[in-house]
């Protein structure tokens, strides 16, 4: 995510580049489009709500400078959750030249609802009729020429994953901008009485408002007001409350006439239009039940769904533990016998000071080894497994099955997806909470995510517990961690005030994950380790050496010793490494190596201390990147509150573990 962010900042100075928005329902392939057009690696997964922020990318197309913006998916313009609000704000506010509306051909009718809303806005659009391969498999054939005729805008059939039709879509979009193709968008016509009411409100709007915010048309505003769109109503109320009053009165009139709220009536009529268009262009063929439909039933059914879910978890752990440790041995062997000696020699010649050479060479070689030995096998394996789970669409089934349990923590099933992502990295996971509807749920989920051992913490857990006690102990640690999360969730649910909502989530069809996208996604996530973690590691080691050299280390360590030594029973100097852990969690381990000059952690701590140390590292303060994203997403007050709570939690649980281990075990 961070990388896309950086690129997006660069893309802001657009100049005379043409701006194109990618809009559509969730999970229709917008990000695949974005990736295909710009070449920028973005996360693509088979569940709704993968993209939760604006992603901009600049590229050249046929010699023309264009800026493509990938939006979060949204079912309608009357948006609810944060990610949908981002999409809607972009559609209403970004001064785009054109919108490419990505439509799922296998699910045309519902997708057309948003298309009709886009047409009402009167921004020029081009429709990409995506996933026609999928539609065909399900026995659905769509006459795209007729659809184009009915909608009055170009419709181009595409298969984004195979790159089919994407070029044509962009070409057509550019032609529309240049005026080489003229579009005549259909007018969405409502029933006679609704039309009369819309026109009446339109008149009021034209009379009372000099300019309409966001440059939308009077008719569109009238419809949005009649639908009672909270954001728009509030906005207009501040300009001229009489308009809102008129809208309210007219909406009531609709309700009297039709016996249902105006918003519902309008939606119904819009669906009516979508239905008749879809019906006119769709032909359905008889077909067999697909294997994946059987799989769908198996994985959601009461009797088979839960056993399958548990098996998936067990298989995942087994893969990580056995596959990971096998790869680890392989890598360590290769590193120690081939790469490490070369680096060592190189450093010997480059670094002039002998003391510095020792520190750097030790820190770098052992640090890199710790990184490589654990990060590469375990973390990449996890990311590959996660990518496969995401691309199949299984995560949504898990969300469905877990709904009941998540309610005990004040959340609903959908929150399970960001929570699982948290095992990879907390930062995108916290961003992922945008799909939740209320602030309360977001705070709750974000808090729990910070307790999830991300891959950096996995490095520590495996490096200490895995190495010195065994993989079974690692499993126990993870289970304990789950218990801590569950108990914290249970208590937070009672403490945090606010609204709770329920699960409403589309279940996408199962898809076969393809190796190349899976590896690409793994790399997008993994590169953070390469680009950020390794430089930080090197600077951290240098900084630590400098600190030690200038004699600052001991005073700082003794300042922290009441907690570190007194409560947690750890060696005083380990407190220093906890500071570095704020930057990145795995640095606690790496800095131990640099600080004590050995990779044999048993020389630093006994087993009992290792357990306490690991627990503390896992729980205390979410790393600085997570903290920043918490602040950005939920406000700094909440971020600080979460950070302090996790520190207290770490000290309490670490202290208790220390006590238990001291008195009952060793």
């Amino acid at each position, binding site marked *: 995510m961070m990388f896309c962010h950086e690129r997006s900042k660069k893309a802001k100075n657009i100049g005379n580049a043409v701006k194109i928005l990618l809009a559509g329902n969730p999970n229709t392939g917008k990000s695949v489009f974005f990736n295909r057009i710009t070449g920028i690696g973005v996360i693509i997964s088979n569940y709704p709500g993968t993209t939760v922020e604006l992603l901009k990318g600049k590229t050249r197309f046929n010699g023309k400078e264009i800026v493509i913006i990938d939006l979060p998916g*949204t*079912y*309608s313009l*009357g*948006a*609810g959750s944060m990610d949908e609000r981002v999409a809607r704000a972009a559609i209403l506010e970004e001064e785009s030249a054109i919108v490419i509306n990505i439509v799922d051909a*296998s*699910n*045309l*009718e*519902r997708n057309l*609802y948003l298309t009709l809303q886009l047409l009402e806005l009167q921004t020029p659009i081009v429709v990409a009729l995506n996933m026609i391969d999928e539609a065909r498999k*399900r*026995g*659905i054939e769509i006459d795209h020429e007729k659809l184009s005729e009915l909608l009055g805008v170009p419709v181009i059939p595409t298969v984004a994953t195979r790159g089919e039709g994407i070029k044509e879509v962009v070409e057509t979009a550019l032609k529309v901008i240049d005026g080489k193709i003229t579009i005549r968008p259909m007018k969405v016509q409502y029933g006679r*009485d609704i039309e009369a009411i819309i026109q009446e409100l339109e008149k009021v709007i034209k009379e009372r408002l000099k300019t309409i915010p966001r440059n939308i048309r009077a008719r569109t505003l009238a419809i949005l007001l009649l639908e*009672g769109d909270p954001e728009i109503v509030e906005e207009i109320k501040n300009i001229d409350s009489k308009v809102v009053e008129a809208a309210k009165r007219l909406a009531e*009139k609709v309700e*009297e*006439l*039709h*016996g*249902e*709220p105006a*918003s*519902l009536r309008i*939606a*119904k009529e819009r*669906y009516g239009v979508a239905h008749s268009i879809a019906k006119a262009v769709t032909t*359905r063929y*008889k*077909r*067999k*039940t697909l294997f994946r*439909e059987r799989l*769908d*039933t198996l994985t*959601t*059914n*009461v009797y088979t*769904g839960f056993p399958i879910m548990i098996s998936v978890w067990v298989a995942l752990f087994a893969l990580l533990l056995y596959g990971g440790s096998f790869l680890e041995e392989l890598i360590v062997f290769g590193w120690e016998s081939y790469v490490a000696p070369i680096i060592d020699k190189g450093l010997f010649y480059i670094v002039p000071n002998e003391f510095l050479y020792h520190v750097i060479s030790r820190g770098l070689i052992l640090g890199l080894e710790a990184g490589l030995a654990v990060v590469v096998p375990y973390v990449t394996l996890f990311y590959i497994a996660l990518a496969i789970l995401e691309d199949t669409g299984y995560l*949504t089934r898990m*969300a*469905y*099955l877990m*709904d*009941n349990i998540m*309610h005990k923590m004040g959340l*609903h*099933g959908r929150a399970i997806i960001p929570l699982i992502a948290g095992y990879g990295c907390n930062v995108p996971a916290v961003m992922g909470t945008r799909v939740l*509807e209320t602030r309360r749920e977001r705070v709750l989920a974000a808090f729990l995510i910070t307790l999830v051992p991300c891959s950096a913490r996995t490095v520590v857990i495996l490096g200490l517990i895995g190495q010195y006690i065994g993989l079974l102990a690692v499993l126990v640690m993870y289970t304990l961690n789950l218990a801590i999360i569950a108990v914290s969730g249970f208590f937070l649910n009672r403490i945090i005030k606010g609204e709770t*909502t*329920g*699960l*409403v*989530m*589309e*279940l996408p069809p199962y898809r076969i994950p393809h190796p190349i996208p899976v590896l690409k996604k793994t790399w997008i996530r993994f590169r953070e380790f390469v680009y950020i973690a390794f430089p930080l590691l090197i600077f951290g080691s240098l900084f630590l050496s400098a600190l030690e050299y200038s004699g600052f280390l001991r005073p700082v360590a003794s300042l922290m010793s009441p907690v570190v030594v007194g409560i947690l029973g750890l060696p005083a100097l380990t407190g220093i490494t906890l500071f570095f852990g704020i930057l990145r969690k795995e640095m606690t381990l790496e800095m131990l190596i640099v600080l004590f000059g050995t990779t044999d952690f048993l020389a630093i701590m006994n087993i009992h201390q290792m357990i306490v140390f690991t627990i503390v590292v896992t729980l205390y303060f979410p790393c600085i990147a997570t903290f920043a994203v918490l602040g950005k997403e939920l406000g700094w007050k909440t971020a600080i509150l979460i950070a302090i709570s996790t520190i207290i939690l770490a000290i309490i649980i670490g202290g208790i573990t220390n006590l238990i281990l001291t008195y009952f075990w060793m």
Partner: protein
Amino acid sequence: MKAKDLGEKVEECLEILFKLEKDRERVKMTELAEKLRFPYSSMTVLLQKLSNMGLIDYEPYKGVKLTDKGKELAIKVIRRHRLSERFLTDILGFDWSEAHEHACKLEHVITNKIEEKLDEKLGKPTVCPHGNPIPTANGKIIFENDIPLSELQPAEEATITRILDENSNLLRRLVAMGILPGVKVTVKEKSPLGGALVLKIGDYEVALGHDVASKICVKTDVPPHRRRHRRRRGSRRIQ
């Protein structure tokens, strides 16, 4: 405030409560005041009066609920309102979009005797000009006998009748996803112990939490007493 005015307000209040209760358990005082166009400050007096008459059950902060007696009276007022509407359109030649407003006035001055004669003269109509059912003389209204979606069993088909929602956020979300009154749905799977369910709507599937499903009312094609016997499993149709 004159006694006659208050009497009119009482009837109107009952009528509005009856309509609002269709979508929720209890009606908030603020909402009631707004719909009634009645000053909030005088609401307590009005509600107190209704409560004393045994027409409503009023709990501060929680809201208002009609008692059985209140419901009966409300249905009577609705009958008179809708008969008045018919009278206005069928006999006096009003436009149907105007009928409602005038009927609001007329309904309060109709006596039992007038009501009876009106019904006869109009040929015992069953629906108002807007298509809403007119309750019968003995206070029966053709209720849609719908049930919460959460009560359906896997493989059962139903049509959504209404969505109960206090603040319309849920309604908005569901409508955007194509879950709204009039839509045909099939329950595909259902988790035990108040878990979520999987709904099939046309070409796509949506998972709904139990709490959400219990706010969606549906009508099955199968009569209620037959429903229990219809727990077929695994029957899939392909369109």
